[in-house]
């Protein structure tokens, strides 16, 4: 019920989070080499999903622009990776995504509901097509090679972006900014009449949330060695964060993390074990979740809790 309540409430939880973080940070020293690779995929999805939830969760504006921000990061890396050191490239990737979101937000955040969703999706397609035109007609290439980085480097950079994403999401949620975002989602007109500068709050949050998707794109590009507009602006990446967030549940901050982790893990497992049926199984899992768990996996926790603790008093 109390959506402002957060996961950092008790020192015990803080300790637990510190422990998990320490384990993740030292992982490449003791885990089998495959583990960081698996975690790279999971972290990437978590970052994109949480970045999506920062804005779309409280406001209810469904953004399908994630792929655009991610793609901007990828191309930043492809273009600047050979001339600038990695941390700066990742930073610029985030910054460019921020600027793009600021621009797009200023133009489109007066649109509501389905119109906003379609416009943001159109953005992904538009950038992809423009880039394709540019590459074929001006630079006479189709794809680009990206400077390679070791898996451990990629893993650590993603881990840092992940921590920054979570901290940002946490502080926005707890701050008065978070309250304003929530009120916009509840009733935008009333929020405006209560003194909330709704346009400013929406545009700024949208832009901040885009930083993380852009930064993640910049570092992920170094894993793929060759990229082209189709790979960089893959529309599927616009829908994945929405699905993962719904799957995990948006009521709590850890919902999207759980959703993205299970989703990414399932994807990895299913693609290797059932290469032909994996999309089908994926779809079924999703349909079942939406039908039976409208609040996502996280919504299941209080349900089970009530059942186990109130079991004796049932049937009355």
């Amino acid at each position, binding site marked *: *019920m*109390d*959506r*402002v309540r957060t996961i950092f409430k008790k020192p015990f939880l803080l300790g637990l989070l510190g422990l998990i973080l320490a384990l993740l940070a030292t992982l490449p020293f003791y885990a089998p080499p495959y583990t960081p690779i698996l975690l790279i995929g999971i972290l990437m999805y978590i970052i994109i999903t949480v970045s999506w939830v920062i804005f779309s969760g409280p406001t209810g504006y469904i953004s399908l622009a994630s792929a655009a921000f991610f793609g901007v990061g990828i191309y930043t890396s492809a273009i600047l990776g050979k001339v600038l050191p990695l941390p700066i490239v990742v930073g610029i990737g985030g910054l460019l995504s921020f600027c793009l979101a600021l621009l797009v937000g200023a133009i489109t955040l007066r649109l509501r509901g389905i119109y906003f969703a379609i416009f943001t999706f159109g953005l992904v397609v538009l950038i992809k097509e423009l880039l394709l035109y540019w590459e074929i007609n001006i630079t006479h290439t189709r794809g680009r090679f990206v400077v390679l980085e070791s898996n451990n480097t990629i893993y650590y950079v993603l881990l840092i972006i992940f921590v920054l994403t979570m901290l940002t999401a946490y502080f926005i949620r707890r701050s*008065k900014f978070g*309250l*304003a975002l*929530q*009120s916009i989602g*509840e*009733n935008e*007109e*009333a*929020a*405006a*009449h*209560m*003194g*909330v*500068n*709704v346009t400013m709050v929406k545009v700024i949050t949208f832009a901040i949330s885009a930083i993380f998707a852009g930064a993640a794109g910049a570092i992920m590009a170094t894993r793929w060695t060759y990229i082209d507009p189709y790979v960089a602006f893959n529309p599927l990446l616009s829908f994945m964060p929405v699905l993962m967030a719904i799957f995990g549940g948006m009521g709590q901050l850890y919902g999207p993390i759980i959703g993205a982790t299970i989703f990414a893990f399932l994807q990895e497992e299913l693609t290797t074990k059932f290469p032909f049926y994996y999309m089908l199984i994926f779809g079924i899992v999703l349909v079942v979740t939406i039908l039976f768990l409208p609040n996502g996996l996280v919504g299941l926790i209080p349900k089970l809790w009530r059942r186990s603790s109130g079991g004796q008093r049932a049937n009355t």
Partner: protein
Amino acid sequence: MRILEGEGVTKYFGGLAAVSNVDFHVDQGEIVGLIGPNGAGKTTLFNLISAALVLKSGVIRFKGEKITGLKPHQICRMGVARTFQSVKVFANMPVLENVLLGSLFGTSTGTSSADAAREATGLLEFVGLSAVRAIPAKDLTLANQKRLEVARALATKPELLLLDELMAGLNPTEVAQAMELVTRIRDKGITIFMIEHVMKAIMSVCDRIMVLHHGEKIAEGTPEEIAASKTVIEVYLGG
């Protein structure tokens, strides 16, 4: 002193003049009533004052300063708060947070979160919602949701409060409570401009009443004058 005044305020919806060349004013410390048949343009006038709608022509001034062209949040921060005819509470947020939002964002100076929380708690007590402060606003009765809207509006520290049909849909006891609330708000030194259909309420609490019909102002005066006016009886009160 005139706290709010409008000159030649006009708004069209398509070809229809929803508010047509209306002049009005509200003096500091008054309770002014706005009445008229359905579709007369009362809520439209409120929407123009609070900038939910942009007027076609005319000018509106608050404390002598032109507010036409400002955004809703700016008008709120200047000191004009409002409630809505169809309640617009933040349904899934707890009652206290609804009010907190007004305290945190509704003033031009900004409020620390500790002060805002204290103010919000005080206002819930003022409107009589202390007992339900933790439950989501959607679980309140209509009467309580309306009170919550009043508390939320008061949290923005207004000098002028626009009440849009505060009493519509309430039972007689609740109407009496709402009337008492309106006079208590005035006693805090807040000027009130209210749309109302409940005649008993409007006649007993208002200092002055304005009547709109088809978007035009057809009468203005004390409750006694309005009750006796032939035109008003013809178009609105009925014989």
